[in-house]
């Protein structure tokens, strides 16, 4: 895994300047009135690079070094441990349910919001963003309050022998809540920018609504959509706080990968904890790698969704 992560990392530092906004740069270099002296430029750049390396890069590197501290054999056997394998399986299941549902929501929310005018639109956008400003722990708590033994639906759920808390459905629900806004957030600015002219043209030429979406809208948003799905997936697989509240921490049954990391870490099996962590860190690297690649190849199409 570490090897494949290394393959992703070199988002080519070769063509350094091309990510910068083109109209600015050449002029800036020459026009002394609107740029800083060389020593200021290099000091600022140095501070930024050191800060980023120390705060962001170093933790990432340390995940892989700690994971491989006891050699590749120990690394592999830590991952092949049955409880760890079952945590990987559970994480994959949760993401496989949560991500498609949020994809469906993201696309339909973005369609409704960007192709039509209606009252309360900005309120709706704020509500979609809501899960971002809720603590992950609170996101888990709300489902405990509903489905827990003293919860609103607790007795009903117990009577019907449905297991939600401390079981897979609870974990899926918490994951959906936490990753709810990601795809919508990515698509709304993108589709906003593209307007409705192409769709209107297609419709006036006799395309059905579905054909219009499939052949006109989707090709325009596919890269933004892909990045949204990747980001949503990374968060879904890595969610810790919310899942921790609803999972019940039953070893080999309701532990997702992040929870397995916590358990291993608290048992002082550090290199095993870091081994599991390195898998998730690898996923994060792939996500960022694809993002950089998409921005580099399709920068203009993605410009609108640059910020989120």
């Amino acid at each position: 895994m570490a090897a494949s992560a290394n393959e992703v990392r070199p988002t080519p530092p070769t063509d350094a300047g091309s990510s910068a906004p083109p109209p600015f740069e050449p002029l800036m270099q020459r026009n002394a009135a609107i740029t800083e002296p060389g020593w200021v430029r290099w000091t600022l750049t140095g501070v930024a690079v050191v800060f980023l390396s120390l705060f962001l890069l170093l933790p990432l590197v340390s995940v892989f070094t700690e994971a491989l501290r006891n050699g590749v054999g120990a690394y592999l056997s830590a991952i092949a441990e049955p409880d760890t394998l079952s945590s990987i399986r559970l994480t994959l299941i949760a993401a496989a349910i949560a991500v498609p549902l949020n994809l469906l929501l993201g696309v339909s929310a973005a369609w409704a919001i960007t192709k039509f005018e209606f009252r309360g639109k900005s309120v709706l956008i704020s509500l979609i963003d809501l899960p971002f400003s809720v603590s992950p722990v609170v996101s888990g708590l709300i489902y405990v309050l509903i489905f827990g033994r003293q919860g609103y639906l607790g007795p009903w759920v117990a009577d019907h022998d449905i297991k939600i808390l401390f079981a897979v459905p609870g974990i899926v629900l918490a994951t959906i809540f936490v990753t709810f806004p990601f795809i919508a957030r990515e698509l709304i600015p993108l589709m906003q920018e593209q307007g409705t002219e192409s769709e209107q043209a297609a419709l006036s030429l006799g395309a059905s609504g579905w054909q219009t979406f499939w052949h006109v809208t989707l090709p325009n948003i596919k890269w933004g959509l892909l990045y949204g799905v990747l980001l949503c997936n990374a968060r879904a697989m890595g969610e810790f706080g919310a899942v921790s509240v609803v999972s019940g921490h039953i070893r080999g049954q309701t532990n997702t990968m992040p929870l397995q990391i916590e358990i291993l870490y608290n048992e002082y099996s550090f290199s095993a904890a870091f081994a599991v962590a390195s898998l998730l860190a690898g996923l994060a690297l792939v996500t960022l790698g694809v993002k950089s690649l998409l921005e580099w190849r399709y920068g203009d199409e993605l410009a609108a969704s640059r910020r989120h």
Partner: protein
Amino acid sequence: MTTVSKAGRRKPPRSVIPGFGITLGFTLAYLSLIVLIPLAGVFFKSAGLGWEGIWHVVSSPRVLAALKLSFGAALIAALINAVFGPLVAWVFVRYRFPGKRFFDAVIDLPFALPTAVAGIALTALYSANGWVGQFLEPLGIKVAFTPVGVIVAMTFIGLPFVVRTVQPVLEEAEKELEEAAATLGASRWQTISQVILPTVLPALLTGFALAFARAVGEYGSVIFIAGNLPMVSEIAPLLIIIKLEEFDYAGATAIAATMLVLSFSLLLMINGLQAWARRRHGHGR
């Protein structure tokens, strides 16, 4: 956040595009079932406690200490990011340097890296024999298992919020304004502080608020490095979990409701700031 602004001004009398009812209906139903109704449950539950009940929980010394730590450390971390975030954004928008594309991707790392992974990595780095900790230890600076560690973790997760909010505004900023300022005899420093800074300020405030809101609720990356000593380095979200494990649902709900109210006030403030920025500078996006 409210990125929808100008484009919707034209008002088509009746859209020819199909699918309004079904997409909006699905969105609202999904939103209500997954987000709104469950969240409302917290407020119903805490309404059952009454003000006195909530106050009784929140005013206990341990809860107060936890809230103070969560909000205090989040504030300091957001301030650190409000200094380094714009600096990083500036360097990326205006300068060329080797490895720029690589570092630009690195900025998003806290978005993509699971919090638990970040938590154990930061702890390993800053503990007494870690890569960074071993240099700080002789100086008498302890980071891991102290409130300082909480600030470090919160700075880590908050940085991209500030950079990614400020960066696009800097990219859009018109350089003609800077040239005009320079022609009128402004020094470079005057131009930066009086022309560029006011343009960036609304975005900076938004990024600051986002980073702050995220840090207040943060759990995964903090609990490993914090040490979780009651009254010293115990954060509010952890206290919610502890209360839940003791089956003290009322206590957990009271803390959660307090945090939710504070976060929602922040959210409203962010939206207010953006509206203000749009009115003032015409590019609130």
